[in-house]
């Protein structure tokens, strides 16, 4: 039954071309799994039923224990909301990450201290040794925030 409803909704959304709702957006969420649902193939469900490309940014899952998964979901806004509802039904706790790292480049000296703690590879020095922030790679791990000697990096909530 639920599948049929989903199909109807897809049709509706595909008609809303002008409103911009059909453009794919990205949403970052933290999924906290209780031990009982560790076997649920979340990313498969997201891809198959909601056409959501999920990019795993961080995962801490140990057998018989609770797990934590940070994923970036790329899909239609409607689908994203439905998917989050569906995940919640499985008993998985969903926390949306609205946080973003922002750089106050006026104060930046391009020293590279933040690059040294960015294991995700979102911070790089370019050929002229200027700091580059590759936002899609950022996992908002916030390591760079206290690392910066000049207080350039802040979290925008």
């Amino acid at each position, binding site marked *: 039954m639920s599948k049929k409803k989903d199909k109807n909704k897809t049709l509706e959304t595909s008609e809303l071309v002008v409103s911009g709702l059909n453009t794919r957006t990205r949403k970052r969420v933290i999924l906290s799994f209780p031990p009982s649902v560790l076997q649920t193939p979340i990313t498969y469900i997201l891809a198959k039923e909601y056409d959501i490309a999920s990019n795993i940014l961080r995962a801490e899952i140990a057998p018989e224990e609770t797990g934590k998964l940070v994923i970036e979901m790329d899909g239609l806004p409607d689908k994203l909301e439905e998917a989050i509802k569906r995940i919640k039904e499985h008993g998985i706790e969903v926390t949306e990450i609205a946080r973003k790292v922002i750089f106050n480049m006026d104060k930046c*000296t*391009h*020293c*590279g*201290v933040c*690059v*040294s*703690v*960015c*294991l995700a*590879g979102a911070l*790089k*020095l370019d050929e*002229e*040794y*200027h700091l580059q922030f590759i936002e899609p790679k950022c996992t908002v791990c916030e*390591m760079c925030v*206290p*690392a910066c*000697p*000049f*207080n350039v990096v802040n979290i925008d909530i």
Partner: protein
Amino acid sequence: MQRTIEEINDKIKNERAQVLTASEAKEVIKEKGSKYFTDNIDIVTCASFEMNTNALLYLSFGQTDPLIYFMDPYINNVPAYVLGPTDLALSCVLSSRDNLEYGGAHIIEDLILGKDIHLKTNGRNFEVYPNKEFDTWFNIKNLNCARLVLNQAINQNNIVAANSGANDINSNMGTLIGKLENSTFNSSSFLNPLINDPYCKTIGVGSSVWVAGGHGIVLGYGSNHNPNQHRNKHSIPIGPSITLSAFADTDQMKSKWVRGGYLKSFGVVLYVGIGIPIPVLNEEIAEALSITDENIHTTIVDFSIPRRTKPIFGQCTYSELRTSTVLINEKPTLTAPLSSMAYAIEICKILKDEIINKDFFLTKSIMPIDMNVELKKLDSRLGELV
């Protein structure tokens, strides 16, 4: 071909001096050889913008009425040291009493910015200095002198810090993530004046240096001076070696080049931009100037053991480090600098322009830097016979 510093200064006066930045110089030498370079180029500008400690700000105030002899002074709530009735020394690494992330280095930056700074002091109990308490605001214009003394203004090379332990370490080399996840280094490598002149043939006591926009003087060798460090076949030391001490008045400085910083769980550090022009006196100096990152080696040190002698993982070159991945114990490790190359490049250009515009002249050194100094250790005398 031989040249003297006087000849080069005459050329600067007559606007005929050929000046290049260190990065430009390396390309010219590579293309046309050191013979052509010696014949045609007079000066090469080198610079660094590295993380510094070992610095102090010498502040000389005017006298109050009634007279005061400072005691327990605080500047913006950072403790300072009394050196005379109204003279103070402010350490760049001490933190404020109410904010650990603000300290001496930030006061130096604020002073150069022209900001008002708070001074609170008691007075010593002398008959001729009856003032017992004083509280005021001052800025750079109210001071008789504000002099920045950098006892480790320039480091010839530095180490690479990594951490093989299980836990993260907050060190003087930034946050080192455990299990060799990252590593840091603190050197402007091929732009560094002492890498381009590895035996200090053109830099000596009394040489003029560019310090953060002002003009200063080299005082001699600095803290942790270790000229006996092992050198590679290009005569570059493979670890910390020569250091230079310099001082400069703050009134000419620009706040962009003097920055107070705070390293997480470590403390306040000072970032300061230094520029040194190297005169191309002969072909030997030109050959030393041709050094590039591939030939500058450094040592990877394990910071997980907080002892004087730390285990090392071997050597690597700066060209490997600049790719931001380096192999440590066969593990690809993220690596990043702590010193700004972008600012060092900018300083090289500024110094070049100053020389061309006749604002900066070379100075002949009074004395060479002492190269027969042994790095001493501080040991406890417990148990020794008195």
